C-alpha cells in the first residue's frame, strides 16, 4: 500500500526543505563582504592551478562502465538471494546452478578486465 512509502516521502520532503532552508538562511542573514580572496576557487587552502576542464583519460569511462555492468549483476543477485531459501526447499541444491553459471560468466569478465589491465590507472 502507498502508506508504506510515507517515510520515504517524509525523508525526501525533509531533505529538500532543509537544504533549501540552510542555503536561503545563510544568504538572508549572513553578512556578505566579498573580496577577491574570498571569491577565488576554494581548493582546501591550496592555490588553484590550471583549467578545470582537463582532458580525462578514456580509462575513466572504462571504470564507470565496469561499475554499471557489475551494478546490474548485483541487481540480479539480490532477488535470487531473498528467494533462495524457498527455491532450496523446492528444488534442492540444484537451485544454485543457474546462479553459479551466471556468476562464473561474469567473473570471467572480471578476470578478463583484470588481466588486460583495465583496472590499472597509468
Amino acid at each position, binding site marked *: *500500500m*502507498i502508506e508504506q*512509502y510515507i517515510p520515504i516521502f517524509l525523508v525526501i520532503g525533509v531533505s529538500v526543505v532543509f537544504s533549501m532552508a540552510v542555503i536561503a538562511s545563510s544568504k538572508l542573514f549572513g553578512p556578505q563582504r566579498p573580496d577577491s580572496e574570498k571569491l577565488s576557487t576554494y581548493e582546501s587552502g591550496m592555490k588553484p592551478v590550471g583549467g578545470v*576542464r*582537463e*582532458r*580525462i583519460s*578514456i*580509462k*575513466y*569511462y*572504462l571504470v*564507470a*562502465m*565496469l*561499475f*554499471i*555492468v557489475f*551494478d*546490474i*549483476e548485483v*541487481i*540480479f543477485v*539480490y*532477488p*535470487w*538471494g*531473498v*528467494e*533462495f531459501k*524457498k*527455491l532450496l526447499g523446492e528444488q534442492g541444491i540444484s*537451485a544454485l546452478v*543457474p*546462479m553459479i*553459471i*551466471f556468476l562464473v*560468466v*561474469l567473473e*570471467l*569478465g572480471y578476470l*578478463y*578486465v583484470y588481466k*588486460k589491465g*583495465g583496472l590499472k590507472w597509468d
Partner: protein
Amino acid sequence: MNIYDIVFYLFAAITLASAFVVVTARNIIYSAFSLLFTFFGIAGLYVLLGADFIAVVQLMVYVGGILVLILFGVMLTNKITSVQIKTGTLQVIPAILGTALMAGVLIKIFTGTNWHSQMAQYPTKTTAYALGHILLTDYVLIFELLGILLLIALIGAATIARKEEKAS
C-alpha cells in the same frame, strides 16, 4: 481524487517537466541534470504501479550509474576541443507536425484501446521474491543469456576504450 491520483500527477508532472527541460535546454549540462529528475519521477511511477524492485533498480542503475556516467561524460568532454556542445533547433515545423501526428495516434491508442487488464492486489511485501522466483525458473534462459550479454558488453567496452597499438 484520492491520494493515489495526487501522487501520480505529482510524479507525472515531475517527469514531464524535467523531460521537457532535457530536450529544450540550450546548455547540455542543464539537460543532463534535469534528466536526474526524469529518472526520479519514473521511479516514483514504478512505485505507484506496485513495482518497487524495479523502482529501486531504476534509482540504482539509472540515477546511480548511467546518469553519473552521462554527467561526467558531458562535463569532462565539454569545451576540451574548443567545440561548444550545445543543442540547437532546426526544422521546427516539420518536427511539430510529425510529433503532433505521432502524439495524436498514441493518445488515440492509449485512450481507445481495451487493454488486457486484471484485478490485482497491491503487493504487500516486496516484489523481489516473486521476481527472484520467476527469474530462476520460467525465465532462467533469459537470465543466463543476460550473463553473456553483460560479458559481451564488458569486453566490448574494454575493447573500445583500449588504446590502439601503433601498426608495426
